[in-house]
């Protein structure tokens, strides 16, 4: 058993510790690869734990089943689901992505691996601590959920564990920064590859977010243990959402970096404009964390001007950046494939693509679902007045499941499959089951997410509650009118979790039982013509009208949803000064 596990971390390295990847051609050092595998595997374990609780939460909100009751620990289950999936599955994976985007793409060793190990241990300790303090809640203690809002009675150990986790993430990210430092010191004027540039932007956003989190949790901790007498609810919320939304922006940038990487390696995409894509990353740096205030739009005590600046104007800067990537990535795929002669007509470049490759399918569905479902709902929710109809409803849950559970998770699942093939050099134990993952997950989760948004906006079903559709205790009122839609949400979320199980089985099974890949398998992974084709016209001469059409469809959907939501708002009674 131990031999199998340690065998997973071994590849054929030369005397210096390097090997050349037979798929990407990258020079990979053992120090980087071992740590990528370590953080990646830990991320998948967190996904499994979070996925178990996804099932219990889904079966409770489907009140026909109502698995875990209000007083039987529903909120503990919800907290376990939130932290394991949204934070641990994501952040462990993102450290791995930093090491890939840094050391691997640049062909360097990972410097100061001791920092990587210390960071890992701290992150693991923090994660285990958080799981422990949530699971052992009793009596009068309140579950933290994701946000641990003061002044709920959350155990101090929870806040302490969060601080340990964040410190660990900071330490684990340092080798990435040092990699860039050494690279730049050696060659100051050379340009970093786009993927590395994206990873660097991710790192900067992460530092901003983590600093905010450390302050927020320390503030709550010193109050919880009695070192300060009182705590201000609004200030905690503002501090919390720096990490609360900041962590989601880390997910966004990491996911976009993965999109560029995988569409290139597996789909044959090129970068249509380095300047445009890099400018978009820079826009994120300036605007995205300001936009975190969009969680505070229906909070008392914040001026209208402050709320509008942060959530409208600042966020439009970030939204512009997202639109740039939303065009550049499919355009890169279209231009790259047309250059290779792989696409005729409007969409031939897309339909001739390797859809039977689960890595490609995961990436493309991630892009489509994130954009149409997650992106549009995010901008809508972020309008000051529209927020009143979205805040704390199930529509919010639909939004962040579209972005994180569907978009980022699917992209990361594709990345795990890619890592299995290239770093662990194993074939899938079942190609069919591997292919089921992106198709099945997008279908099930996509429908679930769409209907979640409907029940939130159409019926105002609240989030963060165990029972409201079948019955509100002590009242004759209930949101029973929404029940037909829950007959879609319930089965679809359960189906999505089951597909997640298939993902884990394929991933773990392939690692343990899969055959070694050979050069034929490597070639199948790459697009026709290999990674860098010869000849073809210049990318600037290639048509991109397929992408343009898709963007027009996207904008049409956006405008329709925008108008619809504002119209519904104006049908309400008069509210506000």
């Amino acid at each position, binding site marked *: 058993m131990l031999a199998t596990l340690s065998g997973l971390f071994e590849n054929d390295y030369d005397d210096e510790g390097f090997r050349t990847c037979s798929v990407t051609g990258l020079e990979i050092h053992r120090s980087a690869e071992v740590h990528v595998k370590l953080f990646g595997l830990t991320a998948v374990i967190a996904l499994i734990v979070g996925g178990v609780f996804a099932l219990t939460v889904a079966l409770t909100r489907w009140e026909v089943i109502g698995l875990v009751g209000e007083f039987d620990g529903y909120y503990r289950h919800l907290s376990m689901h939130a932290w394991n999936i949204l934070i641990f599955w994501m952040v462990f994976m993102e450290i791995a992505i930093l090491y890939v985007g840094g050391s691997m793409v640049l062909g360097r060793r990972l410097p100061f691996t001791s920092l990587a190990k210390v960071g890992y241990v701290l992150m693991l300790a923090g994660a285990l601590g958080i799981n422990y303090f949530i699971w052992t809640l009793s009596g009068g203690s309140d579950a933290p959920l994701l946000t641990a809002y003061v002044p709920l009675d959350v155990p101090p150990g929870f806040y302490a564990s969060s601080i340990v986790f964040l410190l660990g993430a900071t330490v684990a990210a340092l080798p990435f920064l040092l990699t860039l430092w050494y690279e730049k010191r050696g060659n100051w004027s050379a340009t970093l590859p786009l993927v590395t540039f994206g990873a660097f932007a991710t790192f900067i956003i992460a530092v901003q977010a983590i600093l905010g989190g450390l302050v927020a949790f320390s503030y709550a901790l010193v109050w919880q243990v009695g070192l300060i007498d009182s705590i201000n609810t609004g200030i905690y919320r503002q501090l919390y959402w720096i990490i609360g939304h900041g962590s989601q922006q880390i997910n966004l940038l990491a996911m976009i970096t993965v999109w560029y990487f995988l569409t290139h390696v597996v789909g044959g995409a090129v970068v249509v404009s380095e300047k445009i894509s890099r400018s978009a990353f820079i826009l994120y740096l300036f605007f995205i964390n300001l936009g975190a205030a969009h969680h505070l739009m229906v909070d008392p005590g914040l001026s209208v001007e402050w709320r509008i600046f942060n959530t409208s104007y600042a966020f439009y800067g970030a939204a512009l950046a997202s639109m740039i990537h939303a065009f550049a990535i499919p355009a890169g795929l279209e231009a790259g494939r047309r250059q290779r002669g792989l696409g005729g007509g409007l969409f031939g470049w897309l339909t001739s693509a390797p859809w039977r490759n689960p890595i490609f399918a995961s990436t493309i569905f991630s892009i489509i679902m994130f954009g149409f479902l997650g992106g549009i709902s995010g901008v809508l929710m972020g309008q000051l007045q529209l927020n*009143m109809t979205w805040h704390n409803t199930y529509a919010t849950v639909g939004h962040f499941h579209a972005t994180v559970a569907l978009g980022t998770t699917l992209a990361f699942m594709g990345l795990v499959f890619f890592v299995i093939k290239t770093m662990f050099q194993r074939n899938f134990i079942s190609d069919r089951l591997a292919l089921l993952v992106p198709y099945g997950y997008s279908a099930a989760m996509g429908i679930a997410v769409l209907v979640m948004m409907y029940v939130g906006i159409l019926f105002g079903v609240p989030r963060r509650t165990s029972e409201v559709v079948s019955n509100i205790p002590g009242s004759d009122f209930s949101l029973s009118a929404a029940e037909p839609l829950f007959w879609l949400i319930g089965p679809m979320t359960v189906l999505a979790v089951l597909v997640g199980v298939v993902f884990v089985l394929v991933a773990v099974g392939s690692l343990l039982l899969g055959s070694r890949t050979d050069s034929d398998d490597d070639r199948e992974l790459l697009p026709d013509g290999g990674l860098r084709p010869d000849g073809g016209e210049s990318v600037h001469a290639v048509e991109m009208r397929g992408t343009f059409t898709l963007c027009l469809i996207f904008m049409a959907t956006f405008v329709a949803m925008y108008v619809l939501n504002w119209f519904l708002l104006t049908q309400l009674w008069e509210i506000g000064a």
Partner: protein
Amino acid sequence: MSGFTRFGDQNPVGETYEVDPAGFEASLDAYRDEAGRTSADAINEGRPPEEDERQRIIVPPGDSVYVMGRQFTWGGLPVALEAGREYDIHLGARDVQHGFSIRPEQSLSQQINLQIFPDTEWVVPMTFEDPDEYHVICNEFCGAGHATMSGSLFVVDADEYDTVVGN
């Protein structure tokens, strides 16, 4: 949308005051002492409340309405308001954060949500046009028992209001 704050009718905007939760509760109690009472049957049947009826529904003495979220009930609810009249809804909380989520019974898709803090009093003016029973649910997690937190706000037709509240 900053333009909408000028020409739009639905904005999450209102005066905020820093308060002590106990202080807000005192304001709520003073308001309740001054307030009249009526019954659900009186509202449903469009008549004055009868002596022997249970009269649990508050009738605001003026244009201010106090709503205080606390684990796990809404202080100040149920309340009866007049349709078409602007009221100042004073939102506050006794202990932890709560979510003020309100909708009319006959039109569930017309719903809005506001956050309530325990150290803040937020005065949000509202004018309800359609007579109906509006249901308030808490949609911010506030502890185990949060799912039981609901209350009612009755909006009565302007022609019937004076009769129904017993004036």
